[in-house]
């Protein structure tokens, strides 16, 4: 009983926002002081259907630059994570401390300076520029996850593979990466979420030329049409969830095929 009360409290805190957003999506005219909306309408859904080209494009580009950031942070962090997890050298703590800072200091402090540099390089208002800024902001999460993975794994497996004659790439793709998959998924999910939900950095570097879901949503949040804003906010839950589900199913299938569990 006590457990149920505690759980209901959690549900009230975490589910009630979803519930209200869902109800608002169906009830554009929901106003104070109605506790339950008096009229339901599918207006928000109709709007999304009509505007689908623009909305779909902004979601697609957002997913694309978030996935690109996951890939880039993986490439950036893979070997450094192995070194930091498995080797001891002087000044290691210091290097680790410095490498973690981009996730801690105010993002504006490097983003506005970097913005000037990207303009000079012709990378402002481009997809590449957005991926670069999101990666430099979010790679510490990937680094931490991969380091944890390498610490658990040790270097025994890769040594074995190399002793048996596997080359560098073969060891990487056939031994290390599959064994590190859980760490990779953990780090990748965080990087994806950080990139997908970032508003300011994309708006600054993308400059409106790179469409984004957050950029599409923001003006609607302050508008009077709460129904549409609610429905699109729910999209922010739906897109990552569908993606994670797809990922989980794919990984399970791969593991089954290989007879691992």
């Amino acid at each position, binding site marked *: 009983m006590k*457990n149920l009360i505690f*759980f209901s409290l*959690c*549900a009230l*805190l*975490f*589910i009630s*926002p979803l519930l*209200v*957003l869902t109800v*608002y999506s169906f009830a554009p005219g929901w*106003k*104070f*002081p*109605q*506790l339950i909306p008096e009229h339901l309408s599918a207006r928000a859904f109709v709007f999304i259907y009509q505007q689908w080209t623009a909305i779909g494009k902004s979601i697609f580009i957002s997913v694309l630059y978030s996935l690109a950031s996951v890939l880039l942070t993986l*490439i*950036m962090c*893979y070997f*450094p994570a192995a*070194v930091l997890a498995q*080797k*001891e*050298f002087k000044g290691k703590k210091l*290097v680790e401390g410095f*490498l973690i*800072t*981009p*996730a*801690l*200091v*105010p*993002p*504006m*402090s*490097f983003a*506005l*300076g*970097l913005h*000037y*540099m990207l303009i000079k390089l012709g990378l402002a208002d481009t997809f590449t520029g957005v991926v*670069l800024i999101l990666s*430099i902001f979010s*790679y510490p999460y990937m*680094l931490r996850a991969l380091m944890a993975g390498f610490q658990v794994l040790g*270097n025994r497996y890769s040594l074995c593979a190399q002793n048996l004659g596997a080359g560098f790439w073969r060891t990487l793709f056939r031994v290390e990466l599959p064994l590190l998959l859980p760490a990779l998924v953990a780090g990748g999910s965080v990087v994806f979420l950080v990139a*997908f*939900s*970032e*508003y*300011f950095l994309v708006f600054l570097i993308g400059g409106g030329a790179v469409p984004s879901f*957050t950029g599409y949503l923001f003006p609607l*949040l*302050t508008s009077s049409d709460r129904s549409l*804003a*609610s429905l699109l*906010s729910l999209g*922010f*839950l739906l897109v990552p*969830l569908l993606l994670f589900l797809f990922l989980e199913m794919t990984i399970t299938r791969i593991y089954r095929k290989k007879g691992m569990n």
Partner: protein
Amino acid sequence: MSCRSEQFTGGVVLKLLPLLLPYLLLFMAGIFLCLAQSMGKFLPVPSSLQNFEAYVRIFEDSSFYACFAFSLYVAFLSTIISVISGAFLAYGLWKLPAWLRQAGIIYKIPLILPHIAVGFVVLVFWSKTGILASVAHTLGVIDSADSFPNILYAGNGLGMILAYALKGTSFVMLMLLALLSGFDQRQVQSARMLGASRFRIFFRVVLPRLMPGIHTSFIILFLYSFGAFDIPYLLSESQPGMLSIRVYNLFFKRDLVNRPEAMAILVLMFLFAAVFIFLYSRAVSGLSSSERKI
């Protein structure tokens, strides 16, 4: 795993290179340009504010101190609320029977929602004509929207604090549940059998185990809410504003001549974050070493 301490050799540097290069060429370069522009160099349009003039101007402006104090207050209060509620909820969730604990995954919802969407949720719930006002009206506590307390735009930053706290609570729970998953429930049970009260169990048995996660989340959440832009842009009031909004206004809205001042504020925020991380980690390591002595 090799435990032999090596020098910072060429091999190590080479393997760190994929990260060191972008770190230096993008992150450090960004910070350097911010510093240079704050001193009037490398500007798209020359400014009359050279060397340390922008800093002098900032320090002579009393509204800067008000913004700084306000940012500290919002960051500190929201982080404290997140850490306390996150610790209790994580502990409570961990103690639930397995089938309920699985359903407890709902705590991740605010983590997945972007900051601007969480800000919108606060707007929908706490505005004078929001959901909570409707609930209060139905219960007969208030008779019109005007008698609902002014939460969002009263100048006390409560709207931002609520939004950061909701997002932060989930974050703290994520960090602490990871620690708790390696913690044996039987330790709590044996403490109980030895006659420890619930209160004592939480503070003497469980909490010490959670402290590393609490410190990490405190640093991350405090510095994030201190310097972030998204939620203040949606929920902030005009006076005194958050520092990030002040920088935004100086950078984008007013004359280009003010750019060194915007950059100088960012340099000060960066220095504050660096000093905070340094002092906090020193204080924590000092604390834990004195604990070990006991």
